[in-house]
């Protein structure tokens, strides 16, 4: 059986319009996939994730001057994204609005250039992943999504979720177990 690693093709570079020129264009190109994916799986809604990705990068553009060069840019962007998504969710909860339009989200989630077969695959997998993540407490969902990013250390994940790296290791074990149980139920 193939190792999962062999299935993961290197991501295609994100297309950046000419208007996004210079240093900020390279920031978007390098980090937009990660930020969009976090927003997508955190918010469970593709159109909200697109809006959130736009808003996160616009905030980043406005605050780029205050970014401390010694800090990790990816971590800084994640912090903006997490705050933004949590504010959105808190606002939705107050209004008691819950989106359940998984089909719309997942149909939009696959790039248009992919074959229908690939879309079908992504849709089925995406639905199962989303259901499993939605069943987790927010903290576990966030830890799994952040740890899945190879560029972040446990220390950085801890920094983003206001806890120690050791606490992350402990909670990650429980988050994995909970996710696996929910994922098995979606089969």
């Amino acid at each position, binding site marked *: *059986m*193939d190792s*999962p690693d062999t*299935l*993961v*093709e290197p*991501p295609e570079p*994100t*297309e*950046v*319009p000419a*208007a*996004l020129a210079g240093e*900020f264009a390279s920031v978007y190109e390098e980090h*937009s*996939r*990660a930020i*969009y*994916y976090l927003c997508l*799986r955190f918010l469970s809604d593709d159109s909200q994730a*697109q809006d959130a*990705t*736009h808003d996160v*990068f*616009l905030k980043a*553009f*406005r605050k*780029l*001057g*205050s970014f401390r060069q010694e800090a990790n840019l990816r971590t800084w962007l994640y912090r903006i994204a997490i705050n933004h998504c949590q504010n959105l969710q808190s606002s939705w909860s107050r209004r008691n609005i819950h989106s359940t339009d998984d089909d719309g989200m997942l149909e939009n*989630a*696959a*790039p248009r250039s*992919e074959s229908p*077969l*690939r879309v*079908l*695959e*992504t849709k*089925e*997998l*995406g639905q*199962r*992943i989303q259901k*499993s993540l939605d069943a987790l407490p927010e903290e576990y969902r966030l830890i*799994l*999504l952040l*740890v*899945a990013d190879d560029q972040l250390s446990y220390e950085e994940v801890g920094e983003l979720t206001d806890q120690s790296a050791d606490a992350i*290791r402990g909670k*990650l*074990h429980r*988050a*994995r*177990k909970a996710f*696996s*149980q929910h*994922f*098995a139920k979606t*089969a």
Partner: protein
Amino acid sequence: MNPKHTKLTQKTGVESVSQQKSGTSAAHDFETPEELLRFDASGQKPPEAVARRLADSVAGEKPLPWWKRLFGRG
């Protein structure tokens, strides 16, 4: 830290086709949820419309006054 995890199995559309042709069952196994999420993330990217909207928004930003450029945007 490397605890034993339940294997996460996903039958893909590609495998369904090969399964029909060969009559065999195939599935991809992921050792951890993170592997599964990485695989999922590799198939997702923000639509180009997001970058275009962002470019428009950035172009519409007012130039900063000299003192903000000098001391940071804050």
